[in-house]
């Protein structure tokens, strides 16, 4: 049985070692905010933060992780949906169907932690996620708006 640190809590994971983290989150822990979209690390719907880096959780098997790895899912990004990206995406009504949005926000959260004031080129390079509804324009605006909110919150 593996031990993992997820959203700040140490949890026991009673599954086969080669199970992808995504399915541990979804099926063992009920954390269904991380979505299944492709299973091959192409679409980004399952993005989580591992030690601050955005990683497609479908590509990480539990045996490649240890209890020191700090895993954060959309459910753990903020206590009350108040992360600047969540505020900005609500303010702009960014989601359409919304299925890609948790993964999109996790990619953006990692990007903003590296670069608190990203321009278009940085966003282009840092957001590999697919959105079939085509919310890219409002995702871009949302990331920039979140950067503003973060600066206001710091000030």
């Amino acid at each position: 049985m593996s031990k993992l640190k997820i959203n700040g809590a140490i949890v026991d994971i009673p599954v086969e070692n080669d199970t992808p983290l995504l399915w541990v989150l979804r099926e063992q822990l009920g954390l269904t905010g991380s979505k299944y979209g492709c299973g091959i690390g192409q679409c980004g719907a399952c993005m989580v933060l591992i030690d601050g880096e955005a990683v497609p959780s479908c590509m990480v098997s539990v045996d490649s992780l240890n209890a020191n790895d700090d895993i954060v899912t959309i459910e753990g990004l903020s206590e009350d949906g108040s992360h600047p990206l969540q505020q900005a995406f609500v303010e702009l009504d960014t989601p359409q169907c919304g299925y890609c949005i948790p993964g999109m926000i996790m990619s953006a959260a990692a990007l903003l932690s590296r670069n608190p004031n990203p321009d278009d080129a940085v966003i282009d390079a840092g957001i590999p996620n697919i959105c079939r509804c085509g919310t890219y324009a409002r995702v871009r605006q949302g990331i920039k708006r979140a950067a503003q909110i973060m600066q206001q919150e710091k000030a």
Partner: protein
Amino acid sequence: MKKERINVSRREFLIHTGLTGTGFALGLSLPPNNKAFAAETSATTPEINAWVVIEPDDTVIIRIARSEMGQGTLTGLAQLVAEELECDWSKVTTQYPTPGQSLARDRVWGAFATGGSRGIRTSHDYVRKGGAVAREMLIQAAAYAWDVSADDCSADNSVITHNPSGRTTTYGKVATAAAKLEPPSDVMLKDPKDWKIAGKPVARLDTVDKVTGKQVYGADLQLPGMLNAAIKACPVFGGTVTSFDSKAISNRPGVRKVVQVGDDAVAVVADTWWRAKTALDALPIEWAEGPNAKLDSAAIDKMLTEGLSSANDVFIGNQAGDAKAALKRAAKTVEATYSYPYQAHACMEPMNATARWTKQRCEVWCPTQNGESALQDTAKAAGLPAEQCEVYKLHLGGGFGRRSIHDYITQAVTIAKQLPDTPVKLLWSREEDIQHDHYHPVTKCRLVGGLDESGNLTGLHARISGHSIFAVRAPGMVQRWDGADMITFQGFVEDDMLGGDHSIGYSFPNLLVEHAMRNPPVPPGAWRAVNAHQNAIYLECFIDELARAAGKDPLEFRQKLMTKHPKNLAVLNAVAEKVGWGKPAPDGVHRGLAVFKSFASYTAACAEVSVDRGKVKIHRIVAATDPGHAVNPQQIEAQVEGSIVYGLSALLYGEITVKNGRVEQGNFDSYPMMLIPEMPKVEVILMPSGGFWGGVGEPTTVIAAPAVLNAIYAATGRRIRTVPLKNSDLKIT
């Protein structure tokens, strides 16, 4: 556009409590015997009418029959009901009635079908009446309580006022009494110019849970005691299962059962989906590949090419004058053949459904674009009368036409039938989703145009050859059209056909539009904008070709043919003006135009594109739409932006090919999508002219691709007539 957001924190609170309060939340703690909402709500709060429930605390629950799949219909319909109800918008929450309730109540909510951009445009009338009737009943209840005439009372923002005395009460206080009153037989609807909630850019009602991960989609559903199923259908279209060796995987962890599903698929049922999926991957299955085992894209292309000149199975979609004679007389003729490939929908949420079956009852939880037909499909698969079945809808993780076809529900019920009284969630892998879609049809189109000595268009002959969706999906309609599929002609027909929703915006002196129906054994389906998508490329790129051959400006050439179509002309002129057509573009940037009417809305686009040493960059799309009435302007803008991405993604990358009877693509590595770096700046001109109700989700899907192709011609002098662009020597940046 500036948005009006009313009291965000209150809204968030209501989204959560409103749903759970009525026992309709489909969260992780769904009770094992989830009842239809009406039974649960009526215990405490009777409905005013089918559309409106008002809780004692003034919470307004508006029932929405159509499905929310991202297009914003849920919010738009709620705005229309709320507008007439005169309720406090900040207290509005929504609820899906169930198809079973609809059946029991003689379809009181009308159609559930959510496709063809019809969500609002075919239900605005009766949902507004629903709101207005409820308002009158609430006012009457207050009037009775005060012993005054209802004529002396008015309602605003959920507050009823007796005007002579100034006495007030709230909807929540009189709702129970109002529910007992007879509804008025006649109500007046507001003039849209007096709208206060509808027509305004209010925030969506379904956003908050989507940014926190709390939104439960079908793929996320957990029921107590639920098992999970992974499925594999014969990869060859029309093939069947010969045998499979369950014993090979029976000892794997968590595996409960291996079942055949229909004649063409096998499913593994396990405690978790991941265990089911990995066991299925290890399961030896023998297939009988059937008659299509050798089918490939080259053979399909040959079939379509034959149709371009054949006299067999040819149907006429539009005819004026004598196009063939005009072409013979023309001083100059121009001829071109375009091709459009199969496309998969690739909804981000793969197909799924959860079913529980007993001998007496079958229940299904699923994302669907049509709750009513989902119920019928459930009943059929369950072998039970529809009255003994129920469907609980969840918000869709994308639809685009795919979730109007319920093969995944049939499969889920078929599996659940083999594990009685056990809820089973079937989730398709992405590969299954791409390889067992109902694809955007493949067509080709040969166009011939004639010009006189002055460069005036004298005639046009368009011959489409290819797949008919309706011949396969709605043969009854094809029968009514004497064997033709008129939907094939979207954008090519006159106002008297297809309800005027897809009429041509040009007046050609001589015109012949034909369809040679050629139906390869690949399942076709409606794909966002359906046939308007390729027809806009055919017509709008060829018009551009004719303008160039005539030595005319593509805008002026179009304008001259559009004088009898003022609304089409207005959207075209709007984009031309905004982009500064005729004035120099930025260095290296070239422009292309497109104008098209579909789903009752008038749309146009101008693309600004550069091509630098073979690298294409789409800088800007200016898009205009006239949908008649605009119910939520900021959501219409979102749909324009998003639909343009859907159209551009297909233009750049979208192509499904067939080899050995099976789809060659399987996931986003082989069926790539447009990503954020390729997203152009989209500027939306929303110009609702009133007086009609046009669609929003689909119409602007079709205008970006021809505008971009025409801009690429302007940049390079090269006509690209076969898409996607990834197959050309142009590189997409």
